């Protein structure tokens, strides 16, 4: 059962769900949805994005210190929560960015409503099924030993380093809780919503699928299919990065998002 952690940072109550929020920078609003690893408030990507945008980065429910209501069990719940968050913070014409599982959440959000969105960036997103019934699109992260998982996810596994002895109890607890939430959301069907691919046409704002080329969990063709399903979406790769380009290439990542916004005519805002 998912437990809830004590307060440890700035929280926002979103429809009565305690949500941990990091905010950085100024300009056009950008909502950043972290992947299954969760989000460190010290992540360099937050400052890198903050140089271009007014970044809001929540810990999704069940991740970090954010609450996970007992009645919840799906990415759908997280998508509605994110819509609630956009309203609660009154974010308008925002750029929605999500990585891996966060990309899945972002795609679900945008298929439900683009009302508050100016653009969508899906980064090595999960969430759709492209192959036949006997072929999984993504390697089963729940069946891989830790070292192998890291090697498949990262171009440089030094980015995956974690020493449970040096880490605080809180950090280890969050890491275990993030895993637990991920398995709850993505165990079966594994990392996809069977309905999502058929709904991607509803994303009618400028969109980019960004792909870390050294992702060995899902193939690049998966990302290309994703982009083809979204009207007018662009596909772009990011080198020397695996499944989590925002961790391995934070500057390049932020530049790519900023360039996409500029090219799409999404003007910076003061």
């Amino acid at each position: 059962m998912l437990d809830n952690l004590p307060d440890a940072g700035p929280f926002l109550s979103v429809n009565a769900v305690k949500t941990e929020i990091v905010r950085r920078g100024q300009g056009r609003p950008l909502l950043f949805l972290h992947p299954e690893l969760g989000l460190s408030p010290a992540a360099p990507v937050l400052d890198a994005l903050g140089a271009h945008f007014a970044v809001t980065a929540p810990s999704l429910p069940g991740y970090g210190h954010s609450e996970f209501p007992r009645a919840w069990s799906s990415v759908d719940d997280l998508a509605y929560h994110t819509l609630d968050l956009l309203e609660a913070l009154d974010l308008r014409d925002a750029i929605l960015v999500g990585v891996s599982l966060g990309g899945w959440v972002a795609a679900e959000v945008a298929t439900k409503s683009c009302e508050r969105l100016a653009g969508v960036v899906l980064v090595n997103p999960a969430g759709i099924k492209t192959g036949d019934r006997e072929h999984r699109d993504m390697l089963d992260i729940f069946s891989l030993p830790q070292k192998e998982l890291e090697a498949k996810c990262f171009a440089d596994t030094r980015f995956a380093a974690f020493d449970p002895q040096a880490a605080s109890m809180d950090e280890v607890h969050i890491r275990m809780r993030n895993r637990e939430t991920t398995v709850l959301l993505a165990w079966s069907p594994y990392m996809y919503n069977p309905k999502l691919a058929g709904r991607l046409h509803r994303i009618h704002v400028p969109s980019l699928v960004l792909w870390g080329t050294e992702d060995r969990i899902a193939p690049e063709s998966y990302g290309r299919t994703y982009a083809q399903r979204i009207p007018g979406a662009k596909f772009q790769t990011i080198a020397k990065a695996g499944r989590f380009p925002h961790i391995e290439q934070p500057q390049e990542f932020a530049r790519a998002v900023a360039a996409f916004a500029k090219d799409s005519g999404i003007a910076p805002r003061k």
Partner: protein
Amino acid sequence: MRVYHFTEQPYPDAWVKDAESLRVVLPTKLLDPVKAADLYHEYLDAWQLCDEIGLDIFVNEHHSTATCLTASANLILGILARTTKKARLLGLGFPIANNSNPLRVAEELAMIDVISRGRLEMGFVKGVPYEVHPANSLPVRHTERFWEAHDLIMKALTTHTGPFSWEGEFFNYRNVNVWPRPYQQPHPPVWISANSVPSARPIAQRGHVLGTVMTGYKAKDLFDEYRRAWADSGRKGPVPFDRLCYAGFVGVGHTRADGNRRGDMVMDYLRTNAIVGEAFKNPAGFIPALPAAQMIKKTGKMMFMSHDLFAKDGRNLGAFSDADLQCSIDGGLMFTGTPDDVYEQMVDFYETVGGFGHFLMMAQAGRMSYKDTEENITLFAKEVLPRLKDYTKARAKSWGIPERAVA
């Protein structure tokens, strides 16, 4: 005291050397169905023999593994329900949190109970972590799903007035109406396995049999917790012994050397039990985040499995899965030697943990032949069991504790 013979129906020819995992991913090209048929028949023959020599029968199940060919406990019990006459038939059991259809489980249990004319002992288990991959069952909220399945099965077996609907968090049925209804009324005895102290409480609250498997002297802590919870929930009098069960290993021989030789063969269970791929040992969410984190901080490793074994004097003997024959004897896991040795060890264990009413003995494992198995269980039944029954009966009387909840 009732004693149940147990084997996991192993397929040792597939225990390839240096295999990373004997479970979940082991390919079936390593199994010869002709050999498997022979083994099934031998294992069934040994259980059949139990019926003739006064032992009861205990069957479990595991999936996708060469350590246990019982992929369905109910199927084996279904066979034995017809072919045996006296033995109690214990399934411990049915991993109901992993089964996608508890209603089907209830139907099968009812059939076994009726065919056996009321000899089913109905055990439910939460299952081990490496069962979630074969079952595709969600590791998170596993305990909640277990209890919902339990509640549904109990209601299904005890409702005789036509269908009811069930719209739960995990299971949804429009028409629950199990035919036949059980032979034993209101329902067959319910057993639930537990290997941690807090897990004993909800079992006691429901008055079910607590089955603790290979926990060694730690069984005492579980039994004590069961007794406390029994009293806390307003039940009158001491806990009858038939509410408490312990499972261990047995090797008996005419000579001590022969008994120890058989005991050592049974140890092959332990030697192979923990050969499981890392990701399957620790499925995310199977152990809730906080206790998982506490374990990791304690050990410094991102792994959590296997309980420690303790000697009678409290000495830590190391991980259960690493125990050798001597550790197993010292840890109250293994009862081995001549019939006298085994009797004395069992009485000593019984006294140390405060008594129990059922003993599940793994008397076959690994490559132990039918001949060795036959002699192992026959010697136990003839040379150990009568004395043990007398002893525990007298002891229960002297403690003023009933042996049975229902006479």
